[in-house]
């Protein structure tokens, strides 16, 4: 099991815990369920979004984000973070949680073939998140 897999596994577990708290907002049960159905597989798919080795910065970022959501006790805030957390983790790991099954950013194939596979579209939200231009 590589570092990326372990990191995404911890993030997915944290997301499930966050969802359990958010589900206590009865009026938002459907929305919470829909968010989890969309983002949990995307978080899990980040395990395949790049090379197994993570930088220390990347691993720390995911662990800090997990620690942050672990402090949440307000279920309404938990609902909010069900939307935010996947994108924070995806940005840290360089993977796309806007896609149904996660994915690699363009140029991350790492095999020298230049075949990026299913990278984000030019106007994908994830590409905009990665973009550093202001």
């Amino acid at each position, binding site marked *: 099991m590589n570092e990326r897999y372990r990191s995404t596994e911890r993030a997915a577990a944290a997301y499930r815990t966050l969802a359990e708290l958010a589900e206590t907002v009865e009026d938002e049960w459907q929305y919470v369920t829909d*968010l989890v159905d969309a983002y949990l597989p995307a978080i899990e798919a980040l395990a395949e979004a790049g090379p197994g080795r993570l930088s220390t*910065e990347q691993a720390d970022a995911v662990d800090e984000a997990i620690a*942050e959501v672990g402090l949440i006790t*307000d279920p309404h805030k938990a*609902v909010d973070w069900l*939307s935010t957390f996947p994108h924070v983790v995806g940005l840290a790991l360089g993977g796309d949680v806007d896609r149904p099954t996660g994915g690699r950013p363009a140029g991350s194939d790492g095999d020298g073939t230049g075949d990026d596979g299913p990278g984000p579209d030019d106007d994908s*939200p994830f590409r905009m*998140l990665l973009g*550093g231009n202001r």
Partner: protein
Amino acid sequence: MRFQDAAKDARAVVYAGIQADPLVARAGALLAEATAAERLLARAAMNGERTDAGTWRRIFPTLFGEDAEDVLRSHAELVLAASLEIAERGEAARSSYRGAVVEELTARLLARRTGPDAPVRRERRVLFDGVPAEIHPYDVTLESAARPEVFDCKWGARGINADVLNQLDDARAHAADEEVPLRVAIVVFDAHRSCEIRLDRSTAEHTRTRLVALESLDELGEGRR
């Protein structure tokens, strides 16, 4: 069809004080010049449990890490500082500040493509002949005589609901009855995918309501789409 200032009740007066807080203007100005990743940082930090900057720097290595460009890092520091100032206002005040920041940001981005003939205004109602006025004003309006636009601003996708969507679409339809091409949009400081998830469950008419989410905010200032 015409625009009108909303009546100021007690709640509106209190909220006006928050809108006028220089912190809101500073955060709005910084976010107008921010990248999508910086805006995600702002969303996270403004709604976070911890308010020490070091935590957020570690969570966002693309902005603060070794490989981040100096210009980006410097600007991200300013965004982070403003976001944490809002977070430190306390849980009760945060939501009002966050809403005011999204409105301020929307207004600033719209101002990039408008001039004196199409002023960007806040807290305005839209009145139509023979139609009772809506109770809730629009957060931001672009009052062009030829191509007016109204915007409802939300901090999160969870703020998308039937009332908001119906009000926007009703306004569009009433304007169309008067042969005015009113464009209606909902601006959400949240991930596009989350907004789509929310909208997919909504039975309210929204096919002609534009969605502007966190990743695409700059489109507000880029001319008509």
